[in-house]
């Protein structure tokens, strides 16, 4: 890694890259989690409608 200036991060690679990887993973994860939360809430609402549990 020391041969490549950019990826070596001046000797701080072991600290810099985990930080960026963690935060980027968190951004992607939270966005996907929000979408699946909405999808599941939608399916659940449709099930409720079909079973007639809600007030008309």
């Amino acid at each position: 890694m020391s041969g490549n200036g950019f990826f070596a991060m001046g000797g701080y690679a072991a600290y810099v890259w985990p930080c960026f990887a963690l935060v980027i993973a968190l951004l992607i994860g939270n966005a996907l989690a929000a979408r699946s939360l909405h999808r599941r809430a939608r399916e659940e609402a449709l099930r409720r409608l079909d079973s007639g549990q809600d007030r008309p």
Partner: protein
Amino acid sequence: MNWTWLHKFASPPHAYRLAGRLAPWFGWPAFLLIVVGLYGGLVLAPPDYLQGDGFRIVYVHAPSAWMSMFVYGTMAVAAAIGLVWRIKLAHAVAAAAAPVGAWFTFAALATGALWGQPMWGTWWVWDARLTSELILLFLYLGFIALRSSIEDRDRADRAGAVLAIVGVVNLPIIHYSVYWWNTLHQPSTLTRFGKPTMAGEMLWPLLMMLLAFTLYFAAVLMVRLRAEILRRERNASWLKAELGR
């Protein structure tokens, strides 16, 4: 003063549709700004004269820390509106925001530890800044746990709101901790008054990331809020129309 406009605005069908329309308008600019900000921070910005390339952690650490507080502020304001005007949508906003804020707080603590180790020689110190940020994480987790422990939704909303509002005390403590107490943590890079303590070529990627994370939160909040509205809503007629049944 007449507040009917607020209640109309806060009606579930209106909010559900508005949140759906707004989400991409927040999400796409956030995505583009993050890509440009990362390139600026990792490639274009020169290394720091003291910290070398290690300072680049600021581009993910500072925005995460900023969001940990901004999301809490949003959550507490929404909770207060919910308590005072008895608007359920406001409680839904607070509930939708909390997990995102907790994740940003975790990110601020973790990237801070990864920055502290090479620069200070330690992952963690029990000083005011780090401890108050850890308390913020516990406030988020407490808010989430308290809500989920109460079966009745209205009671969960109110109890959670009280906790969120009381916890606001912690925000100025976090912000001013680096001035009030001795700490290893450096003071703010950006202050409202006075010049930033950073060169322009280092500063613009940071400003982009701060804006990007804020827009990102807005986008995620809109999607989570839609889910929250669907879970709470028991009025079948608009659900039928909205979901096409």
